């Protein structure tokens, strides 16, 4: 695709260089320091990206695109199923009736709609038996951004990640099996997932743990909300009917909120949310500073999925709606037994492989030398992490210079020293800035 120059490992995020203004906001929030600015545009280091979407959240020009599937793809199938997470319903205020939302989803083209968290009740039972003889703490596999964060930044913890599938995959398996039992050919039905986050797109497109997802395509929840809400506001006429499987228990509704998972687990469990909190906690866990913990619920977004990247509504209001919704549904639903019967065999996945961030070199002798040089360089840099060099921190710039991916003179402080000494001309200094931030920036506002 024309305007896109870097795609990620999993192809869930990409930067459109046509739209990117090289503001560096994304670079500053990336938890794996996978972004740099060069030539006035941001670029992603694909192997380091964990698809958390923190960059997408802060991008002021919407230059970061989500690799969701084209909505029109659903019409390639006779039977078009949409798996809807409970956060979707929580995007609307209480005046919008649930049945109306289903009707509109049908009118937009789906033939059947199913709630994602109906598999939660079965999964919770599986988790409780799983943790009995697993290495502690068991880290939840629910949040795909966290799973990828652990693969990249905390490889020693990969074996603690629960080898059970997240609810969305179990629900998708359930319906796939149901249609197959009913004699439908797999070319006849398409199972689409309405996603509140970018990580889940990556999780469906390139899953971890030796697993292949039965999900046909992923629909962006932000995009779809607008479509549904517009139809609601315009009061479109409903001409089609849709099969609704809206079974949900209170457990299921609360599952994507913070604490909604850990509360169901026997033993000592904790719930952590937010990227920074998650990194701090995993750091401590890796240092073995945290003892006697049985289960860790951990999600990349503040307020978990209520604060999902593709959830447009205020996260606290979304979480409030979920709690209110949970208080109105029963503790159990009528599909629990069916899930037990058809899904127990499929909830397990294989070990997740680490994805180590090799910083310098695979040869340790070479790596050590480079690391030593980077350390000396870092002492020359000011340590204020201003980002004017196009790297997120002085440390990152030192690493880039040692790897031959950046110029030492990219540092505006160091360059000022050289300019003061007369070792670098104004022309050269301007050229360096232009190479990082693009020519245009230094030609406008000059009068």
């Amino acid at each position, binding site marked *: 695709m024309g305007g896109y120059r870097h795609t990620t490992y999993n192809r869930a995020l990409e930067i459109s260089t046509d739209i990117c203004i090289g503001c560096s906001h994304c670079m500053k929030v990336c938890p794996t320091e996978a972004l740099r600015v060069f030539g006035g545009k941001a670029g992603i280091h694909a192997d380091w990206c964990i698809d958390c979407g923190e960059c997408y959240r802060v991008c002021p020009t919407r230059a970061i695109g989500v690799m969701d599937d084209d909505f029109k793809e659903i019409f390639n199938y006779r039977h078009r199923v949409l798996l809807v997470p409970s956060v979707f319903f929580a995007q609307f205020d209480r005046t919008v009736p649930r049945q109306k939302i289903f009707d509109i989803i049908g009118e937009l083209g789906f033939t059947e709609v199913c709630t994602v968290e109906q598999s939660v009740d079965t999964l919770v039972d599986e988790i409780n038996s799983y943790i009995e003889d697993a290495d502690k703490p068991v880290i939840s596999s629910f949040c795909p951004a966290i799973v990828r964060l652990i693969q990249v930044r905390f490889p020693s913890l990969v074996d603690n990640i629960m080898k059970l599938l997240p609810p969305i995959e179990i629900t998708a398996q359930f319906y796939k099996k149901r249609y197959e039992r009913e004699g439908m050919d797999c070319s006849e039905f398409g199972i689409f997932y309405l996603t509140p986050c970018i990580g889940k797109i990556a999780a469906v497109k390139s899953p971890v743990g030796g697993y292949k997802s039965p999900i046909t395509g992923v629909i962006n929840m932000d995009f779809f909300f607008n479509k549904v809400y517009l139809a609601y506001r315009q009061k479109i006429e409903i001409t089609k009917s849709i099969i609704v499987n809206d079974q949900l228990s209170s457990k299921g509704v609360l599952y994507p909120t913070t604490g909604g998972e850990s509360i169901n687990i026997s033993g000592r469990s904790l719930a952590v949310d937010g990227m920074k909190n998650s990194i701090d906690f995993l750091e401590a866990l890796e*240092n073995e500073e945290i003892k006697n913990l049985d289960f860790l619920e951990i999600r990349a977004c503040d307020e978990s999925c209520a604060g999902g990247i593709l959830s447009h509504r205020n996260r606290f209001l979304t979480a409030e709606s979920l709690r209110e919704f949970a208080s109105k549904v029963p503790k159990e639903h009528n599909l629990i037994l069916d899930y037990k019967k058809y899904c127990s065999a499929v909830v397990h996945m294989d070990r997740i492989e680490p994805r180590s961030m090799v910083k310098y070199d695979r040869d340790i002798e070479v*790596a050590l030398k480079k690391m030593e040089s980077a350390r000396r360089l870092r002492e020359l840099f000011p340590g204020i992490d201003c980002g004017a060099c196009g790297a997120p921190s002085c440390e990152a710039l030192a690493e880039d210079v040692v790897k031959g991916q950046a110029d030492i003179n990219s540092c505006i402080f160091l360059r000022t020293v050289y300019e003061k000494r007369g070792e670098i001309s104004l022309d050269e200094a301007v050229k360096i800035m232009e190479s990082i931030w693009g020519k245009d920036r230094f030609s406008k506002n000059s009068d």
Partner: protein
Amino acid sequence: MKFQYSVEGGDFTMAGHASSQVKKSLKQLGIDSSIIKRVVVALYEAEVNIVAHAYRGVIDVDIESAGIKLKLTDEGPGIPDIEKAMTKGFSTASAAVREMGFGAGMGLPNIRDNSDRFTIDTVVNKGTVLSIEIDFK
């Protein structure tokens, strides 16, 4: 590559700083995570020992391609009965220290078990020197 960290007795809020930094370097070098884990556990325990028992100390870290050498030198009371201190479950940590989750008495044997080579030199009323070596292969 050599690093040095200083440790203050009683400063539990900073305990774990050296092990976190060393861990970061080892990860960047692409060292196997099971080896990193052993280094971190041994160093963290040893670091906390200085905080919990000594007045101050210095940690010298030397990372080479074959492995890591850690030397922890402290000024402190020393260990009067090494054999006892090397016994699993033995602890001289105070109740306040135990309350913070430290001083379960697993320190020294745990450090030894995670090391490839481990030596301890102690002089009562003077201090202790701990040498830990862990190979990368």
